């Protein structure tokens, strides 16, 4: 059944698939994870800060993002980001935003909601006595977060955060709907141009599988090591 396969099409397109496509995917994943983590931490802190209004706003944002399909959010932001930019900078017309920046903003905003829930669970897993002891020692809220709670919480939730990053890596494939050439987009462009869907999609699946499996194996190893430390 593999007789009329043209595996050469994969070899010929390797430079494009990896140098362009996979670079885009990995860069987008890495930057979104960092951005999402920062914004997600902020959201989690807002929800745990004790300021009702702040907590409410952050909670609404997180619930909204988690209620919507990523595909819809991707469409929203691709069309909306230039207007947000216009509003932020006070420019007279929508600012020009490239495909990469737009997807980056989308994934940061979207993943932050998921990261913030992981952070919140991680922070809440630290027993109440610790921040209480910290405040008894005269540490402010931000000091107690910075020096006592977050370092421990972060270690607890590291495996979950990394697993979420693997999910993010897979989710970036959805920028396909915007014709942006990420790894899958690149594979599908070659596939459609040469009429080689079977070869290209099987290859794409294999690449995603290998990378995600290795990464999740790494996370499991890490989890085991951290578990011993605790």
């Amino acid at each position, binding site marked *: 059944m593999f007789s009329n396969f043209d595996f050469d099409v994969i070899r010929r397109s390797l430079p494009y698939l990896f140098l362009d496509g996979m670079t885009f995917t990995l860069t987008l994943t890495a930057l979104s994870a960092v951005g999402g983590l920062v914004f997600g931490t902020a959201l989690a802190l807002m929800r745990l800060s004790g300021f009702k209004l702040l907590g409410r706003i952050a909670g609404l944002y997180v619930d909204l993002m988690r209620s919507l399909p990523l595909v819809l959010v991707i469409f929203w932001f691709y069309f909306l980001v230039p207007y947000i930019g216009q509003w932020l900078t006070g420019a007279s017309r929508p600012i020009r935003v490239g495909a990469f920046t737009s997807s980056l903003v989308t994934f940061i905003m979207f993943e932050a909601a998921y990261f913030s829930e992981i952070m919140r669970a991680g922070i809440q897993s630290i027993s109440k006595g610790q921040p209480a002891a910290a405040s008894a020692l005269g540490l402010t809220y931000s000091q107690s977060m910075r020096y006592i709670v977050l370092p421990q919480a972060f270690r607890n939730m590291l495996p979950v955060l990394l697993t979420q990053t693997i999910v993010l890596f897979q989710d970036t494939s959805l920028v396909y709907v915007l014709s942006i050439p990420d790894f899958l987009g690149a594979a599908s462009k070659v596939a459609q141009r040469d009429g080689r869907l079977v070869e290209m999609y099987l290859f794409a699946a294999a690449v*995603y599988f290998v990378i995600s499996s290795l990464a999740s194996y790494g996370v499991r190893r890490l989890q085991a090591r951290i578990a011993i430390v605790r």
Partner: protein
Amino acid sequence: MKYNWNWHIFFEPSPNGTGNYLDMLLSGLVLTIETALLAWIIALVIGTIVGVMRTLPSKTASAIGFCYVEFFRNIPLLVQLFLWFFVLPELLPRSAGLWLKQMPNAPFWTASIGVGLFMSVRVAEQLRAGIGSLPRGQKMAATALGLTTTQAYRYVLLPIAFRVILPPLTSEFLSTIKNTSVAITIGLIELTGQARAMQEFSFQVFEAFTAATVLYLLINLVVVIGMRLLERQVAIPGYISGK
């Protein structure tokens, strides 16, 4: 340059001749729900089988379950749908492939099965964790009573494990609903797809997406409330979520 809002657009006739744009979105909503329900049934059935396999003492069963989970978890859903939709029919004998391709509503069946299999892994993992969280005494007591493994799972372990994992299952069901939107890439015109079609036909981007957003929020609300009621119904007094 300002965006021209036009909220009356929903009541203007859509080009498909069956009503206005609101009808178009609602028909998408119905398709989203149908696809999600079928996918969810598939996910529950297969997820239960695989989840149980992973907790069985048999090494083989456990290994098969592990491989299944790894396969479906490490490939993006979009790529999985492409595999089912574009690749599978080409690998089958020509007549079978053709039958598959020319099936009416092929995107619907492909999406339901594809999303269902993808979500079955999540159900399996939740169930495995749920069974794992039960005290070992439960299984031992069942065995001591003379129940076979099947009976122990059927009458003791699964009924309790499913109650334990009901809250995470709620969010997995919500994920199933959301994931059906990935199927617009294989031509399923569900809610997100209809919102996009409305944007293309009417050019009112943000109205279309706002409406879809509101409808998704409504589905979420209904599911969350429904599952809370179910949780209360099945709660065992004095146990887990029972109060």
